[in-house]
Structures are given as C-alpha cells and as structure tokens.
C-alpha cells in the first residue's frame, strides 16, 4: 500500500464519479429541469447535501440565494465589462441574468444552511431537518 494517497489518482476518480452521474434523472420533478444556468453538482455528505456551482465573475453582492423546504433558488446577474476604446479580439465570456430553482428529494433545514463563495465557486451546505432523517427500525 502506498504511504500517501496519489493526488492525481484522486482527481481521476472524482472525474469518473462525476461523469457517471451526468444527466441522471435524480432531480426529476419541480422547476429544476436541467440545462438552466448555473449548472449544479449535488453531493451527499452523511445525512446532508452539498450543492456546488461555478459562478466565475459574479459578485457576492449580486447573488440571491433562497431556501424553502426542499427547494433552493439561486438568482443573480453577471456583467462583463470592457474598457472603453478597446478593440475586442476574442469574446467567449457570457453575461446576463439567471434564476434557477433546484428541488431536492429531502427537506432542508433552512435555518442552518451555510453558503460559501470562494474563487467563483458557490457551495451550499444543505442540512436535512431532523424529522426527515432516516430512522433505524429494530426488528423484534
């Protein structure tokens, strides 16, 4: 066994895991139809869920995040500014408004949701409400 885990193997593993869940029909109901901006990845972490999305170039103050029962809404606007009198050689970055609602198959404890925004990545930690957590049933 290797002394240290190989970080490159870890990345390949993550990329493969992400690929195998691409376009799964896990989020089937609600207004969350895939293909809307921003694209999201949803992870399970114990009982809770983590929603991660890439929002490069968006100001924290321009983000509006709402959580209600099992729905997360992410809205905002992105602006791409060019200096005056500049000639554009290449223009690939997009700008505009976005407003997306994602429904998860769990009930979210809205009061303890944590949002982090670093380097253009928004991560929402969505804890499950206590009464929605699975209970172990003892067989008599």
């Amino acid at each position, binding site marked *: 066994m290797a002394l240290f885990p190989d*970080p490159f193997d*870890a990345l390949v593993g993550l990329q493969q895991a992400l690929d195998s869940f691409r376009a799964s029909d896990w989020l089937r109901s609600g207004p969350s139809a895939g293909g809307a901006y921003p694209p999201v990845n949803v992870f399970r972490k114990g009982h809770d869920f983590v929603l991660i999305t890439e929002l*490069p170039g*968006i100001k924290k103050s321009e983000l509006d995040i709402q959580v209600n029962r099992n729905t997360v809404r992410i809205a905002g606007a992105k602006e791409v500014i060019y200096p005056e009198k*500049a000639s554009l050689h290449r223009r690939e970055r997009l700008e505009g408004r976005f407003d997306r609602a994602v429904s998860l198959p769990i009930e979210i404890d809205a009061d303890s949701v944590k949002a982090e925004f670093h380097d253009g*990545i928004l991560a929402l930690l969505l804890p499950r409400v206590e009464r929605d957590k699975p209970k172990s049933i003892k067989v008599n």
Partner: protein
Amino acid sequence: MSGSQELTVRDKREMVAKEEKTTPGRYFVPSADIHETGEALTVVMEMPGVDRNRLNVSLENDVLRVDGQIDFAKYEGMEPVYTEYNVGHYSRSFTLSNKIDQERISAQLEDGVLTLTLPKAAEARVRRIAIT
C-alpha cells in the same frame, strides 16, 4: 447589457493538447476574452475554483501559457448524486503577436476570473501622427 438577457449554459470545453500531459486527469479550456488598447493587451479568463497559489502564468517565445490547478481535496468524503458539469484543471496558451513588455505583465485573480494585463513594449505602442 446586463439584465436584458438570460444566461445560458455552455458546456466546458475539454482541452486537446498539442503536447501530451504526463499526469492523468482531464484539463479544461477556460473561457477567455481578449481586448487591446493602445497601451496594453488584456486577457481575461474564467477559472472557477483556482486560487492564486495554484496558478501559473508564463511567457516564453511569445507563447503565453496559463495553468490553473483546482483543489479537489474539498470534494473528499462527498458522494456525487447528481452532476451537470465536470471539474478539472485549466490550461490555455496564446501566441502573442505584439511585442510585450515582459517585465510589466500583471495578473489579478478575483472571484475565479483571471485578468492578465500585458503592457506593450515602447516600440510597439501606437503613436498618433500629427499631420502638419
């Protein structure tokens, strides 16, 4: 212009390298804007998830190369259940046509957007010629 149109999703472009990488894992091409003024060339690239310590910008033989590594240790202990995009490092290079003052290149990274300002060397700057 902002506020008038809806943002649409564009799939990340996977990098097709001229030379092969010796490390496994997929690389993506960051979306870029390039604009030029009389004094400088500006390259703006979107590299979400890259922090300043994992960014490498080099200029060699007029080729500007940008390499950004993401920190995927944050994904440890998380099990994907639904995904719409993949993650990976970023890499892109440009061949510069103008003479750039290499000493004065500046880079700024904010909210996952890298802005490179490449000032033109004195001899390449636009001179306005007065007609007498």
